[in-house]
């Protein structure tokens, strides 16, 4: 009919022939799929690396055949993908759910066909699925309380939320605000919509300090953005010892800033250096996907796993922040929780990668997808 349609057909079928040959799967290993959401940020990249490292670890590499799919921020598409995975014979599906509720029907149909569905980081409400996550309310509560204590119950604070309309953001923000409400001396003077992005936090905070000078702000509660706030305070001429307390985020840069001023680190520069920033650091840990995969395999092996796995909140304070030597799992088990700037060139990289339950994955897993053993 027309040459381009024909060209399209030829291309599509050509590619099909090429890849079809390679896709012939062996029968023995469990067929496991990873359904990811948006991959355009550090957290997702680390989580994917750690899942891949887990699948490649000596314990799992002969047991698991892992395929990774990305759906973007579109719940409709994730529904379709999960269904296609079930159709393709998935035995387990590890999923970063875009919506806690919209996937329920497709998860239910997967469960009905005896597929193990396990969600990481965010929860799904469908009870037949397994969830690996932190307690978001606790995260908001603990960090809000820390800031309130740090300010001795009075002062003007700025709040930076995540993505409005998501369960995680609503739970964290509501919990923190509930804490602040108990202190009549604490006033939230401005609230920015930070979208869990340093870049957005930067523009939002710029708008806020346009009308509220730094001198009128006593503390910051941010889901993501402490790193940015420190840079902006430095640009405004605020010295290290006068930095505002900032509760939030688990980026490596932020934790390096929390180290006592003068701590020797490799590759420090700009504001990516120890400065004794008063802070409490927490994060949704990116190892949750790897743990989810491990648990899914245990379930396929016939073991019983709990449906709701609440991870310990990875909290780091100025007292507990400690530089890692190698970043191996053993090293981190010794209590270290931040990495050299020379190794982690991107300060926005998430440092909360240690779990006592995942000795298979360490720094190399998060960085390159290489397992510990």
């Amino acid at each position: 009919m027309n040459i381009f349609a024909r060209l399209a057909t030829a291309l599509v079928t050509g590619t099909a022939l090429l890849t079809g040959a390679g896709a012939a799967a062996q029968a023995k290993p469990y067929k496991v799929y990873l359904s990811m959401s948006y991959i355009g940020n550090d957290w997702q990249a680390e989580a994917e690396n750690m899942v891949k490292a887990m699948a490649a670890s000596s314990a799992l590499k002969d047991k698991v055949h892992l395929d990774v799919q990305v759906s973007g921020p579109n719940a409709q598409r994730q529904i379709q993908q999960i269904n296609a995975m079930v159709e393709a014979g998935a035995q387990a599906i590890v999923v970063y759910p875009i919506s806690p509720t919209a996937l329920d029907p497709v998860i239910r149909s997967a469960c009905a066909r005896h597929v193990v569905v396990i969600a990481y980081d965010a929860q799904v409400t469908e009870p037949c699925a397994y969830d690996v996550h932190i307690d978001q309310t606790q995260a908001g509560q603990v960090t809000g309380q820390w800031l309130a204590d740090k300010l001795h119950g009075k002062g003007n604070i700025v709040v930076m939320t995540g993505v409005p309309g998501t369960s995680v953001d609503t739970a964290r923000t509501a919990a923190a605000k509930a804490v602040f409400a108990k202190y009549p001396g604490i006033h939230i003077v401005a609230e920015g919509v930070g979208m869990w992005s340093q870049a957005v936090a930067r523009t939002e905070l710029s708008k806020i300090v346009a009308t509220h000078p730094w001198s009128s702000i006593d503390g910051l509660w941010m889901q993501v953005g402490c790193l940015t706030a420190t840079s902006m305070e430095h640009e405004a001429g605020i010295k290290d010892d006068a930095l505002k307390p900032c509760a939030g985020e688990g980026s490596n840069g932020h934790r390096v800033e929390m180290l006592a001023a003068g701590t020797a680190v490799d590759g420090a520069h700009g504001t990516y250096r120890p400065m004794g920033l008063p802070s409490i650091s927490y994060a949704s840990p990116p190892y949750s996907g790897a743990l989810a995969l491990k648990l899914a395999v245990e379930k396929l092996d016939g073991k019983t796993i709990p449906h709701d796995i609440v991870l310990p909140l990875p909290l780091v304070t100025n007292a507990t922040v400690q530089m890692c030597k190698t970043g191996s799992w053993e090293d981190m088990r010794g209590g270290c929780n931040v990495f050299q700037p020379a190794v982690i060139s991107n300060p926005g990289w998430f440092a909360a990668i240690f779990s006592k339950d995942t000795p298979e994955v360490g720094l190399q897993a998060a960085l390159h997808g290489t397992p510990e053993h």
Partner: protein
Amino acid sequence: MSAVAAAPTPTQRFMPELVRRRGLLTAILVFIVLLVAVNLIAAAPMGYFDVSYLSAGGATLALAAIGQTLVILTGGFDLSAGAVISLVNVILATHLGTTPGSELMWAVIGIGVGAAVGAVNGLFVAALRLQPIVVTLAVMFVTQGLTLLVTDKPGGTVPADFTAFLTGSAIPNLLPAPLVVLAVVLVVWGVLKRTRFGTALYAIGSDADAAGFTGIRVARTTFMTYILAGAAYGLAGVMVTAQTSTGDPLVGDPLLLQIFAAVVIGGTVLGGGRGGCVGSVFGAYSLMLIVNILLVLNVPAYYSTVVEGLILILAAFSGAAHGGLPIARWLAAPRLPARRGGGRGAAAAVMLTGTAAAAPPRVPWRTRHAEALRYAVPAYVCFFIVLAVTGWMYGGIGPRYLGALAVLSSFLIVLALGQGAVILTGGLDLSVPWTIGLAGILVAGFGQGSADSAIWAIPLVLMIGAATGFVNGTGVVIFGLPPIVVTLGMNGILQGIALLYSGGTPSGFAPPTIRWVMTGHLLGIVPVIWLILIFIVLASLLLTRTAFGRRVYAVGNSQRVARLAGVNVGRTIILVYMLSGVCAALVGIMLSGFSGQASLGMGDDYLLPSIAVVVVGGTLITGGRGNYLGMVGGVLLLTALQTLLAGTTTPPAIREILYGAVVLAAVVALRDRTAT
């Protein structure tokens, strides 16, 4: 008409029909090709369950695409579609009862809510003659705010029989219910198309003025169209509620760009008059099949956006190549007789030597100037009102505030030139987000290891931006692809490249020079403010005082007239996309300097604002009219408004509503009172 003379042979009757329906036929062909491809590469061919699942999954998109098609057929554009779907979804999920009566009632209410939002759109577009894109953009913000007011997090339950009725099987193992819903809607469309309303719809899209002269009630038909479109989005919202059996305030947002892609792949022409709803349904399902193909092929994550972008362009390619390649038309064009009297020479001379205030020829200079002012001034008036409110709320505005406002505005001021120029020629550049993202990541990445790489990194990244624009422009001009599809596909490809280059986590820092420009001090203010002032002057001169600028306006007013006047239309359009690419890349560089480093997705928040500021600044989205200083006014207004709101503890829902309301107020003030 004599029956004897006009009696055509069967072939003669058949061929024009075929040509006329070429868009639809190619849409069906694309769908079949994809369907065959899925079945060829999948381990097992699709069974009833797959078909049923696919039909349920695609129904929301298909219904929304039907609504969008109606609007596009009248020459409009509806950005509120995704937001309406979310609103209806959360209303249903929070209110649905368990009795069939309650379910039916709320389904009808859902469609009614959609129609009501459509009526608001229609009122502003039809009765007040405002530009659809900016009206629907403002309504989109308000609707998103309302959605968050209904519920600020996902939740709510939907009775199982509601889900089963709409997404189950109408006839077990034979006919999925969603296909029945779609069939009913398409039958309604088929009937509607043959009524006077249907004729009017196409007539308005082809030429609203001509339609008006023939006695068609343009305003009423347009109003009705938006209501029908809203009802279709409402039904899509009902469908997504059934499919997901719960509510999520963000469910509809990511659907918006897919809806446009579905319509365009379906053979409906942006600008109106040609196409139909059946094609859009096939377009929607083609997009769904692409996901399945990606899954079966097991495309690595970082490549998936690239492959998806390519398939999208490829699909549009076969859809767009009507009547041979456009390149042939470009070549043939000069030989067309100049059908409009007056001869090409005279008309061209008037047009090209006038100042570029986009006024018709022979109007005195002062009048033209006054018109440009009239479109540009409302944005500034609103801006000063916002400034006054800010000053009143925070006890005056000082240099710190103005400095911050100028720096925050600088990104959109640069973007507005590129996007504005593209819009002036009647196009749209959706590749802005990842051009920004990739440019920022590259400029930070290149900087690794060297003390100051700005000298070579900036020109290199700007050239990459230009190259991106060149590809966009080539796709639009040489291959005749719809700008929305080319630039949307390009956006996906750039995203993939950014992911591959950065390995998912961008490293490196912006060169110190760029950081100093964005955050340092020069003569008391941030250096970028000096640069942006120079930029505004140069950009303004570029669009008004150069041959290129005049060609941009000429092309926007009428491609045909411009061509007859000797303007190389193709080259102008390609240059405009290159300009947009360069501007977006520049913003990426600026953002990386502003933040100190680059992050993936940092351009995502600049797409809709880049369009909004251009239109709020008085530019006509269909091209030809607009003024750069007006766009700058639009930037200042929206940035000042956001700054005002960010300094408060207003909840996000209320912010969105206020934001939408102000945009709407600005365009009401811009209203073209002398519109014909």
